């Protein structure tokens, strides 16, 4: 019974991942990890002897402890990976913000110059006046 429940549970997770991928809500590079984990679980549910065998080799007395330890390790690594990706994303956002700032200044300058050209000048001010603020 427990085997059946576990089996269904893993299958549902795999299906959800597949569906998310299909709708492009999940990038493939993150999905791979979860698919690998899902398949690993599936194997483990199908052949629980594997766990006993592995804990015997590694010298873990209670097999379920091996399972917990592996799960913890995996979660820590996943968290680290996400922090890494997040940092990279922030970096990219920062670069974009810099570019946007500089481009906005350029645009204001061009608008001001155009305005100057159009209303050929009574006053000879070189510096851009106060062009209308563009919405951010």
């Amino acid at each position, binding site marked *: 019974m427990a085997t059946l429940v576990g089996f269904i549970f893993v299958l549902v997770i795999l299906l959800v991942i597949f569906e998310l991928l299909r709708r492009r809500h999940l990038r493939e590079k993150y999905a791979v990890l979860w698919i690998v984990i899902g398949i690993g679980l599936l194997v483990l549910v199908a052949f629980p002897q594997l766990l006993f065998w592995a804990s015997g080799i590694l010298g873990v007395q209670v097999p379920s402890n091996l399972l917990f330890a592996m799960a913890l390790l995996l979660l820590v690594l996943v968290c680290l990976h996400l922090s890494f990706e997040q940092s990279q994303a922030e*970096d990219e956002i920062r670069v974009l*913000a810099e570019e*946007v700032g*500089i481009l906005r*200044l350029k645009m204001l300058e061009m608008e001001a110059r155009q305005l100057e050209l159009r209303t050929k000048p009574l006053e000879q001010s070189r510096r851009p006046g106060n062009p209308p603020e563009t919405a951010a």
Partner: protein
Amino acid sequence: MNSAEQTQRTLVIMPAWNESEAIGNTIREVFEFGPACDVLVVDDGSRDSTAQVARDAGALVVQLPFNMGVGGAMRTGFKYAKMHGYTQVIQVDSDGQHDPRDIKSVLDGLREADIVIGARFADKGTYTVRGPRKWAMNVLAWTISRIAGTRLTDVTSGFRAANAKAIRQYVDHYPAEYLGDTIDSLVVAIRSGCTVRQVGVSMRERQGGTPSHDPIKAAVYLGRSAFALLFALTRKKNEPSSN
């Protein structure tokens, strides 16, 4: 670089965050007492009228969409300088604590080095700090002096100039982390082969805003600067890109 003295194009970069009180005056003073230059204000996501005030005072203004800290603002400034072919830049605080009369002497130092720091303790002016903050500054100054091979007394000063080589280096590697704008950027630049020297400047009272003298903040500052230094020292060497 010396032969091209006449054709130097100078950009004054002012990172500003909610500085509408003081920035107008600072910009006008730079135009009045400083050498011929353009002033670029990098408005670091201010919520007040900083950008408008700066524009009215005659500065170019880059408005960042959100706050990125001094490091991020300076990166933007250096990028702008490189894009528009400026040959030397100088960072000046928007709150008016750097005397625009000193800009020229700091820029003059660029004849002998790639990066020049306007130092607040070099026997000029009356700027003093005490307690943990002072110890932190001393340790940092000592360590970075060793790396730079020249005596530096004020490595956290934000009053610093850079020539074209240093600008290129900065655009590639200027860190946006906390304190990256002072310690990290300096160490990375030195290790990429930029030379550094310092020039004594006098420091004035801030024209607006309040200085922080909280001992807890000072301790946090000490810890974070040590952290920043540690990372800066263990980082790989970078060659400045050739445009």
